[in-house]
């Protein structure tokens, strides 16, 4: 079917071209080759994907409990004052949410500071202010501050939150504060990168109008550029909260009292019903926040 020229666009960047032209073909080919290379390096054997009979038995036992999670302890002898599974799951869920929620404000603050610094919008604003050179110092300072902020952000997020946690565990022992700082540092770095991109890629209509009306560069930035980027930034911060929930749960594997702690303990005792109780609790948490951030996103995108 002959499509009319420029009948539709994929990303608002020119007409979509028919056929496998452009970068997609080569990139797909590269991906396939890279996959083969990885399989060769790791000696991946597709036959090993098919588990042996014993593993099948284990898998059957494990997934057989998926829809019958344990509502009471599977252990036969327990101290009389042990709280019920549901109480433990609820407490661990609350701790998971508390860790994630406590980590967000510092990481958003860090992300805003580094993200503002790293964005190019605040020091290349001359295009909008009609090329006036009153604030020439920004042109000198801007690239330096921007590069420094980018570097710090990249360094923070290049270390995984669990590795930060391992470092802090070794340095401070198991304290909840260490868990929150371990989450906040790499999340701050990630938020900084994304915030900077969002500020730089936000529509420039309002900024242009403000500059036309005689606003200075700072005014253009705070009242023109930033508000246009804000809805995307809020939506992304909410998505990171969802990620923080998952990370906080996993921190339990390192001794913090979140869902992962109980999940690992039950799995190692082969109490698969209990494992599924904790897994469903985690699923419920994540799906709830996913729904919430989706609802917020839909309302922000006017």
């Amino acid at each position, binding site marked *: 079917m002959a499509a009319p020229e420029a009948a539709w666009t994929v*990303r608002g960047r020119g007409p979509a071209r028919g056929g496998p032209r452009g970068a*997609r073909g080569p990139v797909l080919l590269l991906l396939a080759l890279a996959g083969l290379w990885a399989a060769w390096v790791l000696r991946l054997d597709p036959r090993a994907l098919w588990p042996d009979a014993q593993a099948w038995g284990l898998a059957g036992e494990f997934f057989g409990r998926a829809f019958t999670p344990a509502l009471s302890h599977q252990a036969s002898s327990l101290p009389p004052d042990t709280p019920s599974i549901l109480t433990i799951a609820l407490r661990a869920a609350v701790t998971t949410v508390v860790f994630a929620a*406590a980590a967000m404000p510092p990481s958003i603050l860090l992300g805003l500071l580094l993200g503002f610094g790293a964005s190019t919008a605040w020091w290349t604003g001359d295009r909008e202010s009609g090329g006036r050179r009153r604030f020439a110092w920004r042109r000198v300072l801007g690239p330096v501050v921007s590069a420094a902020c980018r570097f710090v952000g990249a360094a923070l997020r290049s270390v*995984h939150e669990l590795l930060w946690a391992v470092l802090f565990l070794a340095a401070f022992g198991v304290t909840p504060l260490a868990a929150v700082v371990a989450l906040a540092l790499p999340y701050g770095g990630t938020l900084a990168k994304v915030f900077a991109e969002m500020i730089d890629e936000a529509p420039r209509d309002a900024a242009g109008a403000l500059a036309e009306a005689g606003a200075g560069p700072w005014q253009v930035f705070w009242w023109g550029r930033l508000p246009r980027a804000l809805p995307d930034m809020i939506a992304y911060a909410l998505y990171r909260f969802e990620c923080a929930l998952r990370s906080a749960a996993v921190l339990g594997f390192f001794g913090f009292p979140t869902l992962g702690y109980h999940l690992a303990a039950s799995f190692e005792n082969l109490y698969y019903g209990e494992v599924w109780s904790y897994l469903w609790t985690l699923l419920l948490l994540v799906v709830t926040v996913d729904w919430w951030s989706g609802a917020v996103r839909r309302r922000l995108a006017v």
Partner: protein
Amino acid sequence: MSAVRELRRTRPRSAFLRASAWAAGLLATASWLFGGFFQGEVWSARRAANLERFLGELRPYPLQDAPWSWRAAGEWAAAQWHDHLAHATLATLAISVAAIVLAGLGGAALAPWAARSFARPDPLLPSPRPVPRVRRAVWLALNGAARGLLAVLRSIPEYVWAFLLLGLYGPTVWPLVLALALHNAGILGKLGADTAENLERPALEALRAAGAGRAQIGLAAVLPLAAGRFLLYLFYRWETCVREATVLGMLALVSLGSWIQDARARNLYDEMLLAMLCGAALVIAGDLVSAGVREWVRRST
């Protein structure tokens, strides 16, 4: 000024957004107030001594109790690199690549079933004839099952997937690759379905009106239109795969993570830090490669 005030007064407002903002603020404040972060001794003499010992042990082994020398530190790091870190870094990269290729295949296979505009008895355009109730129910169930499966896949963290799969497969490399692949297939499948749903409708509807079937529209229009976007997402996710591949190794005997865990267990914090730095360098290199490829894809679509 009054015009501005009038504009402000009549701005669109949403009770849901307002409630969400309050809820988020309250949740964060309550977490800090009642989370017990400052209970007990946050700072004690024992903690300070512990920290000092730890910082001392971060120094490369030959330089502990000796003045700092870049040369000696470099030689120590090079020896570590040639001994095991080079191979572990390569394995970490390979795990992330194998996982993202599998995740891409899985996500692309599941996405059409999860896209609400296609996985229905009357794709894109209302059917001219009434759809039998059974067919409608079957498609609804298929769509719901695909969306539910993707939600479960992506809601379980990679680390938990790896932990569970290691219980099944034993300490080989497959559980790590599969854990990353499953979690990311859930994410890529969801993003792929969203992309397919958000494509410009008129062209697809024209194909449908001309009598094209679901498979024909999918292969001839949706796939080429959505492929660029999907590749962008794939490379974004690959960046996180590189990060995670290091960490998942802490559970098994491959990738940098296993050396981090090994050094941690033996209290050799200098070796642990060096392995972490190798992981960090790999992450930064991966980010640069991914940014380059994404720019290339973005320009050509």
